[in-house]
């Protein structure tokens, strides 16, 4: 997304890939926001007992421009959905998403008109964490899975990557349906 797009393929790029992936694994800065009860567990993950900073992820950035990871910690209401989508658009590539808790993953106990049934309806999710709420250990395990995924990424995926269309301004959104990502085959 940055320099790597311009590079030819070969041994050098493979080595560089390893370095870049390693650096991304070890410095994933999450976006500072919480949505519901799960956020409390996310905060606990940052506290002394669980210590997310071991992964170098304790720098929760308030501005989406500086963040790499979006931890959707809680249920996403229909009103919040455009905001989440927008924040996700504002984050610069490469970016990752963890759907924390059953609400963010699939709607959970709130199968009703007000809650988006899983945040993957509006943004792509990398790791799903089950639980209501997941314990901080689960979130750390999710971070481990994410690190494994980051370690396997190649520059190729970014060259072929087509950015999804940017979301609309809040007043242009006619219905939630218009925000939906096209269904995956």
């Amino acid at each position, binding site marked *: *997304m*940055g*320099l*790597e797009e311009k590079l030819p393929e070969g041994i050098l790029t493979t080595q560089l890939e390893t*370095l*870049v992936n*390693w*650096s*991304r*694994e*070890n*410095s994933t800065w999450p976006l*500072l926001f919480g949505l519901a009860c799960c956020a409390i567990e996310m905060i606990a993950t940052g*506290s*002394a007992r669980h*210590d997310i*900073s*071991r*992964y*170098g992820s*304790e720098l929760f*950035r*308030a*501005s989406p*421009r*500086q963040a*790499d990871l979006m931890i959707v910690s809680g249920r996403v209401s229909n009103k919040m959905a455009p905001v989440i989508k927008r924040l996700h658009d504002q984050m*610069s*590539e*490469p970016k990752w998403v963890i759907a924390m808790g059953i609400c963010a993953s699939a709607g959970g106990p709130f199968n009703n008109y007000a809650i988006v049934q899983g945040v993957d309806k509006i943004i792509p999710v990398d790791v799903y964490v089950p639980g209501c709420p997941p314990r901080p250990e689960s979130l750390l395990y999710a971070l481990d899975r994410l690190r494994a995924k980051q370690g396997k990424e190649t520059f190729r995926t970014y060259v072929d990557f087509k950015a999804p269309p940017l979301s609309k301004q809040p007043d242009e959104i006619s219905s939630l349906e218009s925000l939906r990502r096209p269904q995956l085959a």
Partner: protein
Amino acid sequence: MDWLNLIVIPVVRSLVLIFVLLTGFAYLTWYERKLLARFHVRYGPNRAGPKGLLQPVADAVKALFKEEIIPGHVDKVVYLLAPALALAPALLIWAVIPLGKDFPAVADVPIGFLWILAVAGIESYGVILAGWSSNNNYSLLGALRSSAQMISYELPLGLFLISILLLAGDFSLVNLAEAPRQWWEWIWLWIMFPLFFICVLAETNRSPFDLPETENELIAGFQTEYGGIKFALFFMAEYINMITTSAIMATLFFGGYALPFGIGSEILPWLGPFILFGKVVVLLFLFIWVRASIGRPRYDQLMHFSWKTLLPISLAYMVITALLTVFLKA
């Protein structure tokens, strides 16, 4: 050999200095994160390299390979210029800081003191331009806060500096570091040190005076629209400022590159930079200690403290110093 002395040697010296400072910045972030972790009874970064020592490398590479976003609504030229403007003064100040006996970092100018004040004055431009060019309410508010705070705290800081000048009677930093002082002068200086340190905290926008970037009110303040390597430049500016001000404080209050009572200055003159380094590390510890222990004040409290408390104190301090200099030194 004039051109050698005039151009080549200063350039080489500056390059070495910049390299050392940038490495210092990288490991200052590690130092801070590890220390904060210790203060919170945590481990701190320990996945990247032994004891997390490669953490700064990971952060730097990640920032380099992040997508470069230039939002559509910004003033492009100023937006790109601002991070550089914030970083350059922090590096420039180092030119006059003495690293050893007859060994200034780049040059020993007789008005080194004024140089520091002048360059420190430029510093706020980077922040203000960043806030203005981002075309974002949060950025602008953060920048305004920052400039108001800097101006308010520059006054007492300047008055304290004048007092130091009165005591030493010289503008050159090398002479300031070496100035022979009587015992009452040291004590008088150290009484002022905590107040001076508070001003410095506010000048460098460090916690607890990091109001320009309070997350709960202003997102990330003037840096809100900056990401990737441009944000890293602001980060760098802040941390190098910390190093610079620590070095200045070490020079003004703790004898700079010299050991107390002149121990070893004759036998081991090359020890100077290392002693200065040690003092800087201790002062940086102080910065981080304060950050880990004290919460932010409200913005009006911050302003009141500067104008109603620090300013009168610094004025009184200056007058008393002048009297002391006249009656005890002359």
